[in-house]
């Protein structure tokens, strides 16, 4: 009846088994985590057709929603969960061959990190969301601190302190909201009588703070560049793709279904959207400008990811059909292309022994595959025609322009950001394929080739034939835009 909850439990089981398994074999950790993520993908795909027909409310402990905790299985959330599991297993594949053996606790923490991202996407209870957020913060700060260079602990501390401070403020917001509404379920908020405007704005800002911080929106993203640069490549990839995707989903859920026009926040809906629009536009400009000036390859990718998340936030804030379609396509293409870019960047940095892209001049002429993969990822991220980002950006700009007024500025920011993105990625790719520099040919192991080829194929396939994901996109957008029929009525 409520068996779908198992989808969330595969990595938990793996995590609990790891301390016993590593007594037997040192490879147990990676094998069982990989198995659990693959099981998650299969389980999710089995349940996807049924969920596409009708969203499901999975209750826990037999307590009906406003009183107990529930998980919400809709096309939107289940699709994102499958994506998360997919990227997590690709990251582990990359890990399998490209790093020395790690201690079992690494895989344990990684499993818990995946659990927390999946839980954030699925949960329907605001305090449960906070708990999952904290779990992810603890696991990811430990994993960042294990980073490649000595600045790892410092970067991770910066991240941890900001994340913990904002999450605590979120807890305060939850308390204030509870004292006014008397429930913690998010579906209750989405159709409750209106809060006082000032009080609603206060609680909304407090609750949105950690979400904005996790998706790296402007005033709260000072940790991002350093953290992504110092973490291990495989973890930067997953942190950038999985965690930011989960954060984007939570933001979309908050802005569109919980703080909509009929909700408890109905008096401040417009203000919240405006706030996110302004912050998102600033994020695009600042992130892309920082990426333009940056010399270290992984930092460039981090700032580029900041810019992309800004675009997604702007798309969510416009809250139209086209803009949401653009934002969702961009969310997918960001996750896939960024994973590809981080894998190749990690490979290149290891082979060349430097982390600055200017010093990697001509590396693509000898190492065709990494250079080619990087080019494909960059092109997909910037949004050249026939790649996944293209449809996203077209729809996004069209959709953000539609409401008019200040949203035109948001569209302009997206356009400018895309141009800057194009400039620096072209510069990097060109320098990779220039003459000069003497690099040795390298052998490619399956741990690098397999994930990269899969991601490349996914990026090109969704670009050439976007109808492939159209069905999923349409049902997700309907769900987000009609919260009453597709969210609240199903849960309550």
């Amino acid at each position, binding site marked *: 009846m409520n068996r779908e909850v198992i989808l969330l439990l595969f990595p938990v089981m793996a995590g609990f088994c790891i301390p016993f398994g590593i007594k037997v074999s040192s490879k147990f950790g990676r094998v069982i985590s990989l198995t659990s993520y693959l099981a998650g993908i299969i389980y999710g795909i089995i349940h996807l057709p049924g969920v596409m027909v009708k969203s499901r409310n999975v209750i*826990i402990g037999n307590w009906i929603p406003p009183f107990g905790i529930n998980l919400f299985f809709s096309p939107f959330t289940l699709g994102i969960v499958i994506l998360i599991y997919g990227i997590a297993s690709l990251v582990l594949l990359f890990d399998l061959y490209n790093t020395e053996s790690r201690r079992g606790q690494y895989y344990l923490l990684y499993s818990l990190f995946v659990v927390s991202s999946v839980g954030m996407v699925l949960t329907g209870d605001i305090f449960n969301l906070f708990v999952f957020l904290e779990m992810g913060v603890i696991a990811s700060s430990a994993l960042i601190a294990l980073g490649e260079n000595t600045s790892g602990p410092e970067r991770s501390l910066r991240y941890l302190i900001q994340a913990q401070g904002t999450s605590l403020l979120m807890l305060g917001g939850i308390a204030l909201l509870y004292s006014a509404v008397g*429930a913690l379920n998010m579906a209750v908020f989405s159709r409750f009588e209106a809060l006082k405007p000032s009080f609603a704005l206060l609680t909304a800002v407090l609750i949105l703070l950690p979400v904005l911080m996790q998706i790296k929106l402007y005033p709260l993203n000072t940790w991002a560049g350093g953290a992504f640069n110092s973490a291990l490549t495989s973890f930067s990839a997953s942190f950038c793709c999985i965690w930011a995707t989960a954060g984007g989903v939570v933001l979309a859920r908050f802005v569109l279904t919980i703080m909509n026009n009929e909700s408890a926040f109905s008096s401040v809906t417009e203000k919240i959207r405006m706030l996110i629009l302004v912050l998102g536009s600033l994020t695009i400009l600042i992130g892309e400008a920082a990426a333009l000036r940056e010399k270290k390859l992984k930092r460039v990718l981090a700032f580029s990811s900041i810019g992309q998340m800004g675009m997604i936030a702007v798309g969510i804030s416009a809250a139209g059909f086209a803009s949401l379609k653009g934002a969702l396509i961009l969310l997918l293409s960001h996750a896939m292309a960024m994973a590809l870019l981080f894998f190749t960047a990690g490979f290149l940095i290891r082979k060349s022994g430097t982390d600055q892209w200017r010093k990697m001049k001509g590396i693509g002429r000898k190492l065709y595959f990494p250079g080619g993969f990087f080019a494909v990822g960059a092109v997909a991220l910037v949004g050249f025609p026939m790649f996944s980002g293209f449809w996203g950006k077209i729809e996004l700009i069209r959709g953000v322009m539609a409401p008019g007024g200040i949203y035109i500025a948001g569209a302009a920011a997206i356009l400018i950001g895309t141009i800057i993105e194009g400039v620096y990625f072209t510069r990097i790719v060109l320098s990779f394929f220039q003459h000069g520099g003497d690099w040795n040919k390298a052998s490619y192991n399956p741990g690098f080739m397999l994930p990269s080829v899969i991601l490349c194929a996914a990026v090109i396939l969704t670009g050439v034939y976007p109808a492939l994901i159209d069905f999923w996109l349409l049902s997700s957008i309907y769900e987000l835009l009609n919260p009453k029929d597709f969210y609240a009525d199903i849960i309550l």
Partner: protein
Amino acid sequence: MKRNELLINIFTIILIILIAAIVYLALTDSRKGLTLFSARLEDRVSYRYLFKCVSETDALKQRSVRIGQSGYENGAANIVTAVIVDYRLFDTFCEVLILFAASAGVTLLMEKRKKRIKKEAGIIVQTAVPMIMLFTIVVAFYIILHGHLSPGGGFSGGALIASAFILQFIAFEKKLSKRWFALLEPLAGLGLLAFGLSGLYLRGSFFANFLPTGSLGATISAGGIMIVYALIGIKVASGLSSISADFSG
């Protein structure tokens, strides 16, 4: 440098006064709408927790709760325990995972102390500590097993057991082996998971209580709450002890 710091302090104080003023204005706004404390106890979800009528469709059907009577959906006399271990057990499960993550992360990041200042405690402390430990652990077991009747439960009891071990770490050089904590913790977690899954297969939902709830207020009552709290207690105790062992040497 000094002056710079002073400027930063003053600036932050001004910022904080601004924040306080904004919060004050937001909370004392006189416009129409719901605001702080506008939900009374009757409007909150806790009202149904108190009357133990969450799963009933008609909220007014159950008009009273009597001590010693059986047949309630949840048999804990301590409503906070009922909320933690039954109504919102999934949250608690996630917290346990957080502690698990913290202890694993601490184990991963910590190294052994290099320069150890050896300082054995005196003879009085060394004789007193085992007795105090015994006493503390007995109290902790009481707190854990009576979590459904009186204040306390797995978290406080587990922390008490961990503090007993802290006393041991302080007093003696030779310590209980860390390996046992590292294995006990996931074992308790697997126990919790098994409890949840058996609820899923016997009652149709994860973490559903499948044991009889007993009569309200009795020592052996409240179904799975005692088992779950014992498992949480073991897990919290081993997690916190493992963290303390890592930090203390």
